[in-house]
Structure formats: structure tokens, C-alpha cells
């Protein structure tokens, strides 16, 4: 059985993914701010390094899978956190354990979002993240933005997820040539503890992003629907899948972008 590390597995999609991996007999290490096997703050460079060091210490023989799932929504009210955790927290951890994944021919799965195809991201922020990667400068830039404006938070959220998806595509070829596959999952709106308690207007907004497989049901995706795909992508059953941004949104992307085949 394999050894898998996963970030953000104390709740939601991450918790369900961890549960499925454990059911299949794997060892799973949860890296999270609270309730993790390794408790660190992945929004900080120090926290990321601590997690990477700990994984090397625990499993110097290598990892079978690294699932980078930790992230916050655009409505979290903390713009720097969206940038630091969603983008830099993911890329740093994935790169930091690349050597461990190479040792076992492992794979990496990154959680993005189906909102990347809906045009709400900021291309300038995406380019700064992917092409410059200077966390301090990007944080300085976003700190001046209005964090009380939900659309600002949302556009930054989408930008980080778009940048992550592009980063996955950029590194997928060379990583695979070194025996490590990397893919991304782009979930639709998922039922979580947060969505269960949200306001009526927020629920209406969520329902305006229809999920074809839930047609007429007024409900969101189940975390298990996403987790099943993450487990598949991280398994050897997906050995031919690399550099893929897999939409797990019940068909929302197909609905809104039927002509986008590739």
C-alpha cells in the first residue's frame, strides 16, 4: 500500500479524499492548520518548509502521492491569504516533495476550480504568479485592494486557481519524464460546512451556477464526488493521465462553454 500526503484534509473534499485513501489501505498524512498530522500554516514560507522537512523526515524513502488541496474561497475576506495559501502554498509544497515523488514514481494532484473557465480571473495577477512568482510583491499589490468587495476576492481566487492550473500544465511534461505525473481537479460548487450555513442570497448565487447532474435538485456537489476523482488521479489506474485539468462539476463547464473542446 502507498504513502500519500494531503494538504487541507481536516474537512471538506480533503477529508473525504483522506477517508477514501485510508479505506483503500494507504497511509495518509494530513497537513493542515488544525487537526492535521502535521499542523502548519501553509500560507507562510516557514510553514511550508516545515511541512516539507517533516515529510522528508517521516518518509525519506519517498511518497506515492501528494495531493495539494488546501485553499480558501474568494469570500474569506483576507486577500493576501487567497494568494499565499492557494497559489504559493500549493506550488511550494508540490515542488518541495518532488524529490520524494520521484523516488517512488508517485503522482501529484492539485485542486483548482471550475471557475477558471468562466473568465472572472485577472490575467495580470495570473501572469505575475506564474511568470514572476514574487510572493512579497504580489501580496503588496493585493493588500491595496478592497477586501470588502466580494468580486475582488472572487477574481483573486479565480486568478490563483487559473495560475495553478497553468503551472500544472507547464511542469507536467518534464515531471512525467522524471516519473512523476501531475494533474488538477477542477470541482464545481461543493456542499461543505460553510455552504450549509450560508445566507439565502449567497445560496441563490450558488444556484445560479447550475450543475447539470443535479438538474432540478437545488443542491451542490457532494465532496465524495470530487474525492473519488482525486483518488483515481493519484492512483496507478490513471497512469496514462498527465497534465490534465479534469473538470468535476457535473457538467457546468460544458453547459457554459459547449464549444470549448480543448
Amino acid at each position, binding site marked *: 500500500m502507498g504513502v500519500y500526503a494531503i494538504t487541507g484534509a481536516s474537512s471538506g473534499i480533503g477529508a473525504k479524499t483522506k477517508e477514501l485513501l485510508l479505506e483503500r489501505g494507504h497511509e495518509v498524512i494530513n497537513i493542515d492548520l488544525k487537526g492535521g498530522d502535521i499542523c502548519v500554516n501553509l500560507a507562510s514560507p516557514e510553514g511550508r518548509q516545515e511541512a516539507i522537512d517533516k515529510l522528508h523526515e517521516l518518509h525519506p524513502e519517498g511518497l506515492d502521492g501528494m495531493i495539494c488541496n488546501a485553499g480558501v474561497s474568494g469570500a474569506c475576506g483576507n486577500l493576501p491569504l487567497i494568494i499565499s495559501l492557494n497559489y504559493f502554498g500549493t506550488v511550494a509544497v508540490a515542488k518541495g516533495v518532488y524529490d520524494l515523488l520521484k523516488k517512488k514514481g508517485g503522482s501529484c494532484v492539485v485542486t483548482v476550480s471550475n471557475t477558471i473557465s468562466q473568465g472572472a480571473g485577472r490575467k495580470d495577477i495570473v501572469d505575475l504568479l506564474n511568470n514572476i512568482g514574487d510572493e512579497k510583491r504580489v501580496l503588496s499589490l493585493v493588500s491595496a485592494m478592497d477586501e470588502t468587495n466580494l468580486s475582488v476576492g472572487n477574481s483573486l481566487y479565480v486568478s490563483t486557481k487559473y495560475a495553478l492550473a497553468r503551472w500544472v500544465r507547464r511542469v507536467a511534461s518534464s515531471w512525467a519524464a522524471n516519473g512523476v505525473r501531475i494533474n488538477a481537479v477542477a470541482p464545481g460548487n461543493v456542499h461543505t460546512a460553510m455552504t450549509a450555513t450560508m445566507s439565502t442570497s449567497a445560496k441563490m448565487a450558488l444556484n445560479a451556477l447550475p450543475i447539470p447532474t443535479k438538474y432540478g435538485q437545488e443542491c451542490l456537489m457532494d465532496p465524495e464526488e470530487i474525492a473519488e476523482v482525486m483518488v483515481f488521479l493519484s492512483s496507478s489506474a490513471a497512469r496514462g493521465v498527465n497534465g490534465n485539468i479534469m473538470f468535476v462539476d457535473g457538467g457546468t463547464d460544458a453547459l*457554459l462553454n459547449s464549444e470549448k473542446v480543448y
Partner: protein
Amino acid sequence: MRPIEKYVEKMENKDFAGLAELFSADGVICDYCTNSASQREYHIYGKEAINMFFRNKFGFRQYSIAEAEVVNDTQAEFIANFGGYNIMAIATVRNVDEDGLITNLTVRPK
């Protein structure tokens, strides 16, 4: 009311459910105006898809029409607003089935 008039009415009222009911099960809307607004063309296949698609567009204020005028039995002109970008458009009901449901409707820049 003719199908084109019903279409205009539903669009003006942002009635996505009523709009979908104007179409046959495999009815299609193709909107080519989006190219001018730097968006992907809208190609929507099936009445349920039409329901969900316009629920999304109306819900997020990404699509509306104004100043509509039915110009003949099958066509209407209006200003289409794509998230703030206005385009003079002409909608054409190209086919209707034996039950009077629209099977094919296109929207093009005028």
C-alpha cells in the same frame, strides 16, 4: 403570440424557465454576438441546458436585452448586453416543430 414574440418577452423578463419551455427537447440557441464582446459563442443544446444557461447568465447579470422590436414573423432586433458590452443584435427563429416549439434560434450582430 408568435414564437419570436414569446422569445422576446421571456428574455426581457429574464424568465429562464419560461424561455426554456418555448423550445423543443433538443432545441438549440446559437448566439454569435459574443465574438464582439470577446466571449466564446453561446451554443446551447436542449431545453434543460437553455434553462440552466440563462439562469446563470441572468443570475450573474451577464446577459440582458433592451429596446426590442419584432420586425417580422420570425425576427426581432434588440440591444444585447453581455456583462456591460452592448451589441445591436437580430434574433431569428429558424425552425419550429409541429407543436410550435422552437427547434433552432440564432442571434447575430446586426
